[in-house]
């Protein structure tokens, strides 16, 4: 929120420099995001007096003014009609700068030389009026810089949601008083509002919980002139365009006290005011010209015929104050924050009033605001009569007392504070203190802090932030065990390094993504939809990872068209949330090079399977992993399979169907594997087994099958027939023969752990194996 330093200084004397103030505020919890001069774009504008006005000989609408800054006189051509001899005006001299990079040069206007320019508020960046020259008060000193009178420092401060009491200049002054040890001057208000006419409008509240306080002040026959410059300047510093006194004072009060008020044209109210919930589907047109359809949870201010305002959020066009307004009714009320927030969010309305109401306003602010506005009315305008304040309120909330123990301060802040220091801090913040026995005190909370000070701990925070966390000594904690280490996380981190070490780049892609992406690769299940997506490209929580890796691949083909490899570990949602890993391999394992010459190797399924084997071997689960030929929708038919761990499917491996990949640059197979990660983790400790010192015997087994057999099935048959001396089986060769027949050659290695095997024994094992293979597969020994 923006704050004008000039405005703050009305309530408190500040001896600090702007930089010191910025640091003090920031280090007490009101983070200053920056500060700047309001008129930083302006230079060489001086206060000057109009000595003479003559007509321009060549142009009817122009005049030649002779002005003086007290030392020299200048002849300036001017087109405005509101100037008179003797007035004090801002003069932009030759060389002056104005907002929007405007530079004043010596120039001829219709043949007459002009030595500068008289400025309007708009030209100075201080308003919207560009018809007339900005006429200044006559007591401003000639020759002084315009900035001396009108410049201001604007602070941008982040006010946290727990501090609605700081959303005003007076509120911030109170805070500055607390952190600098000064006192803020009280607001100038009338002592009391005594009516001399009867309000024709009465107030009825249907739900005192929703609206615990509603004050209404009726004013008869009020003049609505334009505001004095002081009010205008203050609003301009808040980026609010001044309109007329009545509108401006409502805004001014909001920025000054933080309390929203609403001015109704009293003559447009039919009957009494009723604060009630809207009927479902009830409609009204708000001040911004929009038609709003309301719900039964929206609190409204209505008369007997129509809705006058959406409570605490925005007024309606039907009761707006305008130039012809004579009689007004001023609302100064308190609404339940959560109601305002619900309505404002549903309707998508951002207003200064709603911003404050949803955070919570001071229950005592309505009276003060009316008295402050009354004071302004007496100063700046005239009116015939006013009513008494009509007050419909729930009983005042109980006085809030909290017991604060010094021991609590010590145990939370970790530092022992003197009782007098604690008291001093709280008194500065506006709390009242009563000493109790046993190093504790009764602390009474001021009403403007009711929204965030409810418990002892809240007071501890207040003491801590004003005392300063910087002054609390640091101590390293002793962390008590026993704690259970999370080895699964270490496992994942290690795995990333293992895979990266094998030549793959880890990616991080957005899990919130578009359902069409997954469908385009063949995912057919329902996906977990986001009900309020930011845009259509992020409408689901991903059910798979690999389509995003393909996107990364496509993106990177422009850099490396020949060879890429990626992997990602992330959560997917497919029936449940689980962690998966996906690995993608593309292009050449190696291209032509100085060793193999022009002989290249394009990565295929078995290259990636080799990488997976290395990973599974690292994880010590290689023997538990099996693969099964299964056609899956994502892959080229006949070129994919499932990965099984202990017989249960954990993922798959395949060559991605090229027709699904939306890029013409893809010229090699895209090989992809994706599987559950948690299943792979095991904290089993490896137990060492003795190894055999006896020689191995190798035998080759070449078999002709009538059709291509499944390798895993052949190996399984060989293993079960061979007996326990079989150490390993490797597929050495595959030949295609005539009529779909295939010859497969396996190398079998036998070894005993107890003795040297004899050829005769191995011959026996081989006979058993051959018998089994021939029987199971209708195969013949080659």
């Amino acid at each position, binding site marked *: 929120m923006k704050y004008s330093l000039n405005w703050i200084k009305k309530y408190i004397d500040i001896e600090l420099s702007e930089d010191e103030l910025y640091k003090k505020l920031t280090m007490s919890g009101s983070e200053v995001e920056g500060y700047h001069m309001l008129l930083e774009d302006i230079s060489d504008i001086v206060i000057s007096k109009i000595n003479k006005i003559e007509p321009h000989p060549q142009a009817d609408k122009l005049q030649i003014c002779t002005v003086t800054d007290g030392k020299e006189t200048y002849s300036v051509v001017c087109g405005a009609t509101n100037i008179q001899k003797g007035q004090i005006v801002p003069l932009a001299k030759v060389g002056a700068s104005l907002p929007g990079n405007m530079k004043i040069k010596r120039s001829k206007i219709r043949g007459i030389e002009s030595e500068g320019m008289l400025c309007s508020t708009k030209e100075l960046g201080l308003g919207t009026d560009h018809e007339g020259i900005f006429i200044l008060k006559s007591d401003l000193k000639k020759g002084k810089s315009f900035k001396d009178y009108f410049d201001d420092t604007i602070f941008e401060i982040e006010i946290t949601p727990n501090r609605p009491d700081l959303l005003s200049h007076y509120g911030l002054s109170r805070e500055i008083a607390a952190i600098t040890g000064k006192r803020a001057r009280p607001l100038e208000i009338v002592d009391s509002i005594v009516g001399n006419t009867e309000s024709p409008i009465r107030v009825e509240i249907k739900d005192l919980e929703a609206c615990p306080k509603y004050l209404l002040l009726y004013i008869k026959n009020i003049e609505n002139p334009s505001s004095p410059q002081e009010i205008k300047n203050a609003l301009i510093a808040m980026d609010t365009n001044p309109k007329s006194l009545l509108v401006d004072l409502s805004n001014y009060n909001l920025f000054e006290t933080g309390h929203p008020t609403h001015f109704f044209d009293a003559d447009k109210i039919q009957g009494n005011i009723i604060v009630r919930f809207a009927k479902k589907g009830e409609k009204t047109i708000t001040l911004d010209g929009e038609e709003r359809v309301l719900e039964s949870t929206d609190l409204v201010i209505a008369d007997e015929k129509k809705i006058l305002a959406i409570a605490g959020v925005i007024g309606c066009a039907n009761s707006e104050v305008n130039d012809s307004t004579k009689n007004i009714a001023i609302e100064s009320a308190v609404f339940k924050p959560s109601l305002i927030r619900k309505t404002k969010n549903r309707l998508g309305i951002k207003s200064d009033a709603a911003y404050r109401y949803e955070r919570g306003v001071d229950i005592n602010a309505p009276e003060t605001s009316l008295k402050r506005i009354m004071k302004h009315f007496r100063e700046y305008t005239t009116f015939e009569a006013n009513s008494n304040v009509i007050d419909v309120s729930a009983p005042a909330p109980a006085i809030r007392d909290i017991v604060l123990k010094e021991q609590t301060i010590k145990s939370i802040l970790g530092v022992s504070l003197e009782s007098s220091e604690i008291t001093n801090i709280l008194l500065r913040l506006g709390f009242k203190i009563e000493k109790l026995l046993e190093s504790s005190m009764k602390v009474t909370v001021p009403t403007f802090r009711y929204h965030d000070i409810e418990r002892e701990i809240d007071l501890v925070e207040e003491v801590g932030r004003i005392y300063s966390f910087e002054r609390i000594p640091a101590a390293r904690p002793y962390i008590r065990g026993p704690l259970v*280490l*999370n080895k699964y996380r270490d496992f994942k981190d290690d795995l990333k390094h293992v895979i990266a070490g094998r030549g*793959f780049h880890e990616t991080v892609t957005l899990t919130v993504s578009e359902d069409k992406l997954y469908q385009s690769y063949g995912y057919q299940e329902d996906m977990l939809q986001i009900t309020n997506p930011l845009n259509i490209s992020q409408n689901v929580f991903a059910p798979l990872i690999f389509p995003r890796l393909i996107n990364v691949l496509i993106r990177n083909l422009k850099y490396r068209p020949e060879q*890429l490899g990626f992997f990602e570990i992330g959560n997917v949602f497919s029936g449940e949330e689980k962690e998966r890993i996906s690995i993608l391999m593309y292009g050449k394992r190696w291209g032509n090079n100085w060793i193999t010459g022009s002989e290249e190797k394009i990565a295929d399924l078995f290259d990636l399977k080799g990488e997976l084997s290395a990973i599974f071997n690292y994880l010590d689960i290689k023997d538990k992993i099996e693969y099964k030929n299964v056609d899956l929708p994502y892959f080229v038919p006949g070129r994919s399979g499932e990965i099984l761990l202990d017989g249960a499917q954990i993922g798959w491996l395949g060559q991605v169907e090229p027709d699904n990949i939306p890029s013409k640059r893809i010229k090699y197979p895209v090989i992809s594997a994706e599987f559950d990660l948690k299943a792979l983790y095991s904290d089993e400790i490896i137990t060492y087994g003795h190894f055999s010192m006896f020689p191995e015997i190798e035998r080759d087994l070449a078999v002709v099958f009538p059709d291509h057999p499944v390798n895993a099935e052949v190996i399984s048959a060989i293993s079960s027939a061979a007996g326990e001396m079989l150490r390993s089986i490797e597929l050495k060769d595959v030949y295609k023969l005539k009529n779909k027949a295939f010859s497969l050659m396996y190398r079998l290695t036998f070894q005993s752990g107890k003795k040297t095997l004899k050829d005769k024994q191995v011959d026996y094992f081989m006979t058993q194996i051959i018998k089994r293979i021939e029987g199971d597969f209708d195969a013949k020994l080659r």
Partner: protein
Amino acid sequence: MTQIAKLKTEALELLEKASTLEEIEELKIRFLSRKGELAGLFSEIPKLDPAERKQFGQGINDLKILLTEGLEEKEATLKRSKRDLPPVDITRDPFPFRKGSVHPLSATYIEIINIFKYLGFIVVEGPEIEEDFYNFEGLNFPPDHPARDEQDSFFMQNGKLLRTHTSPVQVRVMESQEPPLAVVSPGKCYRRDTIDASHSSMFNQLEGFLVDENISVAELKGTIKYFIKELFGEKKTRFRPHFFPFTEPSMEVDVECVFCGGKGCNVCKKTGWLEIMGAGMIDPNVFIKAGLDPVKYSGFAFGMGIERIAMLRYDINDMRLFFENDIEFLDQFR
């Protein structure tokens, strides 16, 4: 003695000339074998004057060592040259080589987690698709409170939401375990933010908390200062009051700008400070919602954005780079 000198001259000359392994073998036999010429000289010793014997014997021995070493060396050289392996140019390209990398966000996580592990914290992970209770209610965010505005959530069809921070893990752990607890929790979070140089709808956070008896702001500061020192080196830090619904008191931690050393630059917006985390003492309401006694236990919690730290660490100026996965970007990391 002249006999020895003569034999030495002859033997060394032959050794010099020898160019094949066969010749070496011949020389070994001729001079060093049991019936060789040196052995012959040894048999001369008894014939000598006893006074000369010692010196003579010493002379033969020296020659024997000299010849043995010379022959072995020559033999080894000849053997190597016989293998005929041509020399290679070791500066040629390796084969095959594929460079991979761990994502800079992972690397940053690992580095940060290691520091906390060293202090005694353990790692616990939680779900990304989370219940309102864990993400908001249990963390003392009242329903319909403006504090929720800063964490605009994605709501899911199944009634859950995507967690907007890693703090839900605090509630999950406290609900299921008795203190002492010292936990860090890394993971992805989601907010309805349009992607730009410093925002993303998905981002990474690390949450940490310590709950035990007698934990205060002093321990919070000690832990965070140690962490910052390990990660950034000796840098000034400051603990600035702030507001979070789940901590009371709350603060933000700034570290002296790593780019300008605190003088003020564009990265630190001329303040000389970089905000790197939020922290505070766990609010008693959070303990109560998780079923812990706030009188018996106290604790602190902190949370930091991993992208932010990685950006500072690697001098990265645009958050989008992390999620675009350009190979030219990824390749710059190990």
